[in-house]
């Protein structure tokens, strides 16, 4: 029993880290009032660019750089559309995802050869801690990138907590953009930056998936993980700890599809594939009614009098 539980946890953490990283970026974006549906596309683009970069340069570090830049570029696109052009955030987000899916599929035909080895990250065992039964292998036998990303997530949560100026600015802009504007907070700049943060972290989440776990790029390899990240923010009631818990639950739900068949449990594969999304639906349906989203979520800001 212990080894199988360990396997399940290892797989859960492996799948939860990308969701966690992307969701904590999305959390900042949503708190600032921008609903970024293109997390999926940012992750996919990040994964694709990191594999292309790592293969071309032969170094996983350049891969990470490429993944981050690619995520940022999609972030710039989304920020221009959502913040500056005040376009419909959901529609443009979905279109950006479609563009990322088609673009990476197209690019993979041109740029990637099947069968070439992609330089990735090796797992680093933390001495002693990795020997803890059950939890040790899952938590303390990760790649350097994974440790760095989790550290970045914690750092981001601290920097944007409600005790810092930045965190207050983010919340102010998301709750009541007009008042924030009147008090001198640069609304558009804060929102634009927040979407860039979403892009950066989502790109890195895709990189983690590609270079630490899968070690290659396959068409549509994120397969909806980005949407789970968006839902994790809702399910986590726009609080960092809640979002982290939701991300872990989604990771666990995704992990079951790999672990249960290995255990010989006879559950149809498709049922396991749909499990995370059913959970996500339940989460959205159950949690939404007693948690409050940022009041200005999905509403573009324009200074009074300019539009008329």
């Amino acid at each position, binding site marked *: 029993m212990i080894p199988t539980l360990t396997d399940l946890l290892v797989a859960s953490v492996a799948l939860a880290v990308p969701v966690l990283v992307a969701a904590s970026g999305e959390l900042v974006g949503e708190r600032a009032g921008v609903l970024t549906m293109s997390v999926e596309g940012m992750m996919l683009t990040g994964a694709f660019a990191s594999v292309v970069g790592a293969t071309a340069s032969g170094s996983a570090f350049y891969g990470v750089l490429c993944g981050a830049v690619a995520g940022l570029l999609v972030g710039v696109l989304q920020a221009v559309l959502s913040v500056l052009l005040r376009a419909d955030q959901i529609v443009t987000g979905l279109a950006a995802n479609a*563009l990322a899916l088609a673009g990476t599929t197209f690019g993979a035909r041109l740029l990637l050869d099947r069968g070439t080895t992609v330089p990735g990250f090796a797992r680093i065992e933390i001495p002693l801690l990795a020997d803890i039964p059950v939890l040790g292998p899952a938590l303390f036998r990760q790649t350097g990138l994974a440790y760095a990303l989790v550290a970045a997530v914690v750092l981001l949560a601290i920097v944007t907590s409600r005790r810092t100026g930045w965190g207050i600015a983010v919340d102010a802009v998301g709750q009541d953009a007009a008042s924030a504007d009147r008090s001198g907070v640069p609304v558009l700049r804060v929102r634009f930056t927040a979407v860039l943060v979403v892009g950066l972290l989502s790109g890195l989440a895709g990189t983690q998936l590609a270079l630490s776990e899968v070690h290659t790029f396959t068409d549509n390899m994120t397969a909806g993980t980005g949407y789970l990240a968006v839902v994790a923010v809702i399910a986590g009631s726009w609080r960092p700890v809640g979002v982290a818990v939701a991300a872990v639950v989604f990771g666990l739900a995704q992990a079951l599809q790999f672990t249960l068949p290995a255990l010989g449990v006879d559950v149809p594969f498709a049922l396991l594939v749909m499990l995370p999304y059913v959970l996500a639906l339940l989460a*959205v349906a159950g949690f939404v009614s007693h948690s409050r*989203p940022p*009041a200005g979520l999905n509403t573009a800001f324009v200074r009074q009098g300019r539009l008329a």
Partner: protein
Amino acid sequence: MTAPTSAPGAAADVVAGSPGRDAPADTGRPPGAQRSGAPTTAWRDRLLDARPVLVPVAAVLGALGVSTGLAALAGATPVEAATALWEGMVGTPYAIGSSLNVAAVLLLVATGFLVAHRAGLVNVGGEGQIAVGAVAATAVGTTLPPAVPAAVALPLLLLAAAFGGAAWASIAAWLAVRRGVSEVITTLLLNFVGVAVLVLSIHEEALLRQPVTSSETLPQSSPLVDSAHLPLLGLPDSPATTAVVLALAGAVAGSLVLRRTATGVRLAAVGMSRPAALRLGLPVDRLRFSALTTAGAASGVAGGVLVASVPYVLDEGLASGYGFSGLVVGLLARGSFTAAVGIATALGFLVSGGINLQLAAGVPASITQIAESLIILGVAGTAIWTVRRTARPTRTRPWRPWRRPATPDRTGTEATS
């Protein structure tokens, strides 16, 4: 309160374009649709009215330019690519026929989208609804005794498909109405579940999988009985099926209901302002529920049509892409069914052309999806120049501080801002 939600007007209208003169089909909209923030001169008016047409055209041209560039990157000269695309679109009667079949499916999805959109709901769930509709249709089409005549079998199959799609959409509709959850999020998530339902049903022999005789048996359903096959239109050398007629009939029906009936006006009222519709005494919840469910039914029929066409089996990739493309058609049509017919046809030809682009010129077929998404980004991104809006949403809830509103407005922006 709800999660990320599109306030009925906001999300809808940003892409729906300015109601009014640009879309002739829109004349059924009640007055008040043409609110304008500031007094404008006649010519500015005319220019603004032209923009909703000019911008999509510019977006299409831009997308075509990018696609040509990408095709060149993939090693095809523009002439080669254009020839392959043209051949795949209209080169042979066969190509024309299959393009029309794709267009029919897109038009069905788009018709449903437009109905829900009129009530302020954005149905992103086409793919899942197609999948579940196809599963329902397959269940009927493979179990009917072969003796049943086509006049009975086909309507039964399409009815089952409509019912499947409607049932699938009703989950999202119920959540939107009762729990105030954004239908965008729920229909999106239901896509993944719906496709998984399809995959499940063709992997399990107890469900719809064809009898497994060897390890070579593909995970797909048994072929439908002959009487459940959609008849061809009978054009020479053309695979075009009666789905084309069905889709056109659906679009005409949708257009008539929205433009010429009281239901259409009610749906529009709900879509423009839910609080105002409530004050008028309209059954807002029921209207929204039925609108989204109808959209699901239309997508479900699209799934049924797909199953009842060559090769008459349910397989894993059946729904892929149609949901999003149908959404694209619905968004670009800006509420007009006439436009939807035209755009669905154009996109249908583009999709078939894209497949030939891959076969003949070696350009990955995903180039057509790139073009589609660029068009949407272009149109949605330029909405601030094409859509006239009042400066701020106004408070429209009746002022009765002593009483809680009958139906709390959960979507936020318009009631709370």
